[in-house]
């Protein structure tokens, strides 16, 4: 059931109506669980087995861990006079070891399922390429949203092991956390500590929540159907026949893909958060005006935020502060000097994070290289920081409006260049195409009507440009005013209603669906 399909819209509308009109407040989470399982069942009944095993193992192991820790803690408290400092430490170390063992078991099972389903063919292909042999791929089911729900479950298991959250004692409630349908397709990657605060509590109908959620859903569909699904047609032509479209066309690919990916991904997240909000549930924001970032680090703090914080909290930090890394850090500072030495472990951890980020995005080498290229750019910008500071101090550009605009444009172009890996889906081809921008001077071709032969008409360009300008202005409003445009509209409710009507009509009239269009799945659904 595609988010952009009529059955999904009807499914969601009926759910919201039944949720508020027929189901008692305390039982509403139960309806959400049934809806989530139904959503998954209609996608493919076999998926339920995978998500069920993941949820069950994480649930059981969390309870065992929590109960064991509580028992040990109670014993320690009751017999504290029998423990001196050393024996207390030893006792705690045993508790921690068992807790770690449960965690390792949970991670092995759940990351094992993810690896087996998503990466088996990637490994077969890679081994075949190394041996220069033909390979036979195996037929593996890849459950929808497996990367997202596995990461949610893994974060739950780690947080339980750390003792930062309390285990959910109801399996059905826990299953809802893992399978909550709006975010199953493409995230955000929620943490149990955040989502559980509103997921199970009795909800009452609130006009503000329902209105905010509704307009956000419309906004998401507008971005997805009017911009993303329209531009994808042109992008396909340009990237599937790359030898015909080199040089300046690659720049066009960069611009179209920057708009398409942004509208596709944020559009999907808008629909997700909008549905959740209509149901009275708060889901973490996944974007914070990423295209206004002034450097790559800031960009990654604003784009796919829940994924970035997941990798920071569960890979970067644990790896960086592990005993081995701390020893290495000490050694490198002693032998390489303080300045270089203290960066060694940070960069090793950063490398691991970006390697994992690349692999998480997909079982293909272009994703791996994309991840590592991000690492290279982050490392380079980190190393060049003192030079930038010197430059800024000397010329006093920092903080000036025109210089901020330059920094934003520079970051946008840099990130759009890296996204080319995702466009061409071939490492060699991406480098060749990127290089062609500087070797093939054919900018004139862009103005001889050739861009009207890639599947987009003048009308398509006009609609897309106007829609992108609207998206930009809405983002600019938030940037300048520091608040969402919905808040301003909600204060003038007639304007709010008018905007909903206009958005609905605009999406119906200008949306890229129906005859001649192929309603496409969200890009992040494949992850």
């Amino acid at each position, binding site marked *: 059931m595609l988010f952009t399909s009529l059955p999904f819209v009807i499914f969601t509308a009926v759910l919201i109506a039944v949720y508020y009109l027929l189901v008692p407040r305390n039982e509403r989470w139960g309806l959400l669980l049934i809806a989530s399982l139904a959503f998954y069942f209609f996608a493919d009944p076999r998926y339920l087995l995978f998500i069920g095993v993941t949820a069950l193992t994480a649930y059981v192991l969390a309870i065992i861990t929590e109960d064991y820790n509580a028992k040990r803690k109670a014993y320690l408290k009751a017999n504290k006079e029998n423990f001196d400092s050393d024996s207390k430490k030893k006792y705690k170390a045993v508790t921690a070891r068992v807790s770690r063992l449960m965690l390792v078991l949970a991670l092995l099972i759940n990351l094992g399922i993810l690896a087996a389903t998503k990466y088996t063919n990637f490994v077969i292909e890679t081994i075949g390429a190394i041996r220069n042999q033909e390979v036979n791929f195996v037929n593996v089911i890849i459950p929808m949203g497996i990367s997202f729900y596995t990461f949610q479950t893994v974060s739950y298991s780690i947080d339980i092991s750390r003792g930062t959250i309390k285990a959910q004692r109801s399996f059905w409630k826990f299953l809802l956390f893992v399978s909550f349908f709006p975010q199953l397709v493409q995230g955000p990657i929620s943490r149990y500590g955040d989502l559980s605060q509103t997921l199970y509590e009795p909800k009452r109908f609130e006009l503000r929540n329902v209105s905010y959620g509704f307009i956000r859903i419309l906004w998401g569909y507008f971005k997805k159907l009017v911009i993303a699904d329209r531009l994808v047609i042109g992008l396909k032509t340009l990237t599937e026949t790359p030898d015909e479209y080199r040089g300046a066309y690659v720049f066009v690919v960069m611009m179209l893909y920057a708009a398409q990916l942004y509208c596709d991904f944020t559009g999907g997240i808008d629909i997700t958060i909008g549905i959740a909000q209509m149901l009275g549930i708060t889901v973490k924001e996944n974007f914070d005006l990423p295209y206004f970032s002034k450097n790559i680090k800031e960009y990654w703090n604003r784009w796919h935020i829940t994924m970035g914080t997941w990798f920071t909290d569960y890979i970067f930090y644990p790896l960086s502060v592990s005993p081995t890394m701390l020893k290495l850090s000490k050694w490198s500072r002693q032998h390489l000097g303080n300045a270089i030495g203290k960066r060694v*472990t940070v960069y090793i*951890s950063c490398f691991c994070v970006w390697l994992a980020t690349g692999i998480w995005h997909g079982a293909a080498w272009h994703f791996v290289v994309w991840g590592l290229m991000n690492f290279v750019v982050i490392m380079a910008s980190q190393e060049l920081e003192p030079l930038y500071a010197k430059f800024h101090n000397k010329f006093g550009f920092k903080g000036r409006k025109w210089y901020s605009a330059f920094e934003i444009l520079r970051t946008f172009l840099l990130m759009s260049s890296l996204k080319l890996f995702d466009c061409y889906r071939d490492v060699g081809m991406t480098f060749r195409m990127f290089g062609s921008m500087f070797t093939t001077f054919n900018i004139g071709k862009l103005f001889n009507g050739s861009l009207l032969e890639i599947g987009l008409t003048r009308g398509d360009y006009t609609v897309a440009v106007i829609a992108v300008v609207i998206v930009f202005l809405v983002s600019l409003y938030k940037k300048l005013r520091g608040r969402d445009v919905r808040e301003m509209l909600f204060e003038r409710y007639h304007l709010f209603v008018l905007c909903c009507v206009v958005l609905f009509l605009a999406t119906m009239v200008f949306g890229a669906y129906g005859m001649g269009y192929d309603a496409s799945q969200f890009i992040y659904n494949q992850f």
Partner: protein
Amino acid sequence: MDELIEILKDLHSDVDFETCTTLIDDKILDSFDIVSIVSEVNDRFDVTIPAKELVPENFNSAKALWDLISRLEED
């Protein structure tokens, strides 16, 4: 506390660590800085800050970080 301020000043000499209470919220310290701090603290105070303590509340101010170090020393 002075030694801790010194560690922090090494990272950002232009920040008033004595008074600032929004080091994470205002994005003054990033994840790279936090790892550097943990590593320095490990050396100078002989305290290991585990990953689960790397949360904004513990790093938003020098005082919060000092409290964390003191708590871990007691443990």
